[in-house]
């Protein structure tokens, strides 16, 4: 078992070990040295920089940083500078909970904004709720609105599946339409499916079948013949990120579009860019934001301009915009509250009327869901595109109203 090593090798490795330990200790001590003592307002921002939603997460970080920069340029909040602490939650609920604990316990953040997957945001919510920390969630979820997960300090800035699917179904489903569903087999897919089925029942369309596919699947070829044999008028693809791009591309390769219309709950800017106009042509889906809103909405114009200036002419994306609206609305509330005291900030958020990127928004009193417009977009034909960034037609801008949400009683709140 004992190996014969020459002396040189043994000394080097010993030195290397000591050097390594030294470097490691220095490295570990660094965050303490660097910790700011001043009056800075710190916002924690966990987001999945690695994993399947990394492209969306990077856009969120850019937009969130822009919100912080704009506020700091105006002199900060109540005279205090704002700092954004971005952490990689790795699209993993346990990791996100640990990161959130670190942000609260070590970095002493004044609020948390972020998380992109619904399981992850529920984990973050559990941690912030127990410690009475403000959390602005920017990922779609119906669960977080329900009374079981409600916290006085949690605000849901993103749309929820119920709002998204209702708006999309209203403009694509007709009485008697036959709808087939291809659904990612995890919380997001299930919630979107539930939303569509509810809207479908109200409209009088009918379901001809549904297929669940595993999260992160690359190959959809086995599902396409089965979906085609259902003979639907509408194929509704309920998945997210790269899954959406792959599923739509393969559906088009199978010639599905000649026979049916493809509808998605959320039409993603990044995935459309990744796959190109031909596959996406004519696909209809919902969105919280599209940069083209700048033609009609002044706040969208100023958000886009600021974003272009900060990012070399690039335009903000849909999920990226959540980073902006989430952080900016929180900072507005802190401004109104005159500081970071949790109770005052929560009160200020409840009363906040804001228009910072997409027209008027406000938080509903019972569940803290942001009441806001839902866009229904259609992907443009290649020949209709005026520039590389000209991706979608805005078919409808469904104005924000509490009627579009599930009622407080349905969510379990006392009347």
């Amino acid at each position, binding site marked *: *078992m*004992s190996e014969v090593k020459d002396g040189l090798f043994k000394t080097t*490795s*010993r030195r290397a*070990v000591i050097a390594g330990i030294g470097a*490691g*200790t220095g*490295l*570990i001590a660094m*965050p303490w040295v660097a910790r700011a003592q001043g009056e800075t307002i710190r916002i924690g921002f966990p987001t999945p*920089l*690695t994993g399947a939603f*990394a492209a969306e997460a990077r856009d969120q970080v850019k937009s969130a940083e822009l919100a912080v920069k704009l506020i700091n340029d105006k002199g900060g909040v109540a005279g205090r500078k704002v700092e954004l602490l971005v*952490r*990689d939650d*790795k699209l*993993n*609920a*346990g990791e996100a*909970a*640990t990161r959130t*604990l*670190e942000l609260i*316990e*070590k970095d002493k953040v004044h609020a948390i904004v972020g998380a992109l997957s*619904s*399981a992850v945001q*529920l*984990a973050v919510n*559990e*941690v912030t*709720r*127990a*410690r009475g920390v403000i959390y602005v969630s920017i990922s779609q979820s119906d*669960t977080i609105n329900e009374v*079981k*997960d409600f916290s006085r300090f949690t605000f849901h800035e993103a749309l929820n599946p119920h709002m998204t699917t209702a708006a999309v179904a209203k403009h694509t489903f007709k009485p008697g339409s036959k709808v087939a569903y291809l659904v990612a087999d*995890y*919380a997001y897919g*299930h919630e979107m499916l539930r939303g569509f089925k509810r809207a479908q029942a109200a409209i009088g369309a009918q379901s001809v079948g549904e297929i669940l596919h595993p999260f992160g699947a690359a190959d959809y070829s086995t599902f396409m013949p089965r979906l085609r044999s259902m003979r639907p008028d509408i194929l509704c693809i309920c998945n997210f990120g790269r899954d959406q791009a792959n599923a739509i591309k393969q559906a088009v390769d199978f010639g599905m579009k000649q026979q049916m219309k493809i509808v998605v709950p959320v039409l993603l800017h990044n995935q459309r860019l990744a796959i190109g106009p031909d596959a996406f042509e004519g696909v209809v889906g919902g969105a919280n934001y599209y940069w083209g809103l700048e033609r009609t909405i002044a706040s969208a114009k100023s958000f886009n301009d600021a974003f272009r200036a900060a990012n070399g002419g690039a335009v903000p994306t849909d999920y990226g915009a959540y980073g902006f609206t989430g952080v900016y609305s929180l900072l507005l509330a802190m401004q109104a509250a005159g500081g970071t005291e949790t109770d005052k900030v929560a009160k200020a958020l409840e009363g906040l009327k804001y228009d910072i990127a997409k027209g008027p928004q406000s938080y509903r009193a019972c569940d803290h869901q942001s009441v806001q417009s839902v866009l229904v977009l259609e992907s443009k034909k290649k020949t209709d595109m005026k520039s590389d960034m000209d991706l979608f037609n805005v078919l409808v801008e469904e104005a924000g109203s509490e009627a579009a949400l599930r009622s407080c009683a349905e969510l379990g709140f006392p009347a």
Partner: protein
Amino acid sequence: MAVETPLRQIRHAAGTGAGQASRLKAAFTRWRVPLCVVALCLLPWILPSKALAVNVLIYGIYAVGYNLLFGYTGLLSFGHAAFFGAGAYVTGIAIAHFGLPWYAAVATGILVAGLLALVIGALSIRTRGIYFSMVTLALSQLVYYTALQASSWTGGENGLRGFTVGRLDLAGLSVDFLDPVNKYYVIMLFAAAALWFVSRILNSPFGAVIEAIRENEVRARACGYDVERTKLIAFVLSGLICGLAGTLSALHLAIVPLDTLHYNTSGLVVMMTLLGGAGSFFGPFVGALVFLLVEDVASLWTSHWQIIVGSMFILCVLFLPKGIWGTFIAWRTGR
């Protein structure tokens, strides 16, 4: 391969006339649990955050439990996430659905993980090598899909929530469990108990038998030991300790994500054990520490942290085949 087992050490000491190295080693072995606990006491003040330190404890216990089976008995299980996850889910369910006090929930979690280990162990220990790994993997996948389907109990894909423990009450004492320092030292008490328990097992005749099985199963059988029963007991003990790690993870994070049962969690403990040194007493703890620390710090620097973690693992496998702690012990004791 064995680095610091009492039987060998006595033999070694007698054979060489008790050199200085052996005496040092003897002292190391005798005081290993107190030494480990002292090291753990300092941990939260060295690491970048208390939350990370608690995770090191939890995954350290998980790896120590796993090492009992992998490092000492020589069985490469690829399904230990089932016991970690069972501990976590049962603890969470006991509090969220049945309103049990925390200590009862912890006990139930450990117990159910042990029962599950008895079932999975009984079904798998008669196979060997890669077949054993595959059977444990398959059975743990069954547990994963059960938890996914039973979403009214487990929360399915969204994970189990709603059992945050804010205060720990026991025998008139009450501790604020949301305070990170309190949380660390409470969980450290469990870690110390687990380390003592494992040390005790390894020092017993039973510990010598499992090592004998690892070294030469045929010979152990020829010596009259009941190999199957011994393996099964080792499997159950390992499952109990991994279950403890799971229950503590549930208390710490106040959620149980479905990922807890994923085969990645099984792979993680294999990597941590190898990194620290399989078959050394404190190695798995060191493995958990190094792995989590590098991941934590590297992901603050760059979103390409996986390259750093991956290269570190490759380098360790190439140049430190006994693992970090195993190599250190071998070097200190001149073996």
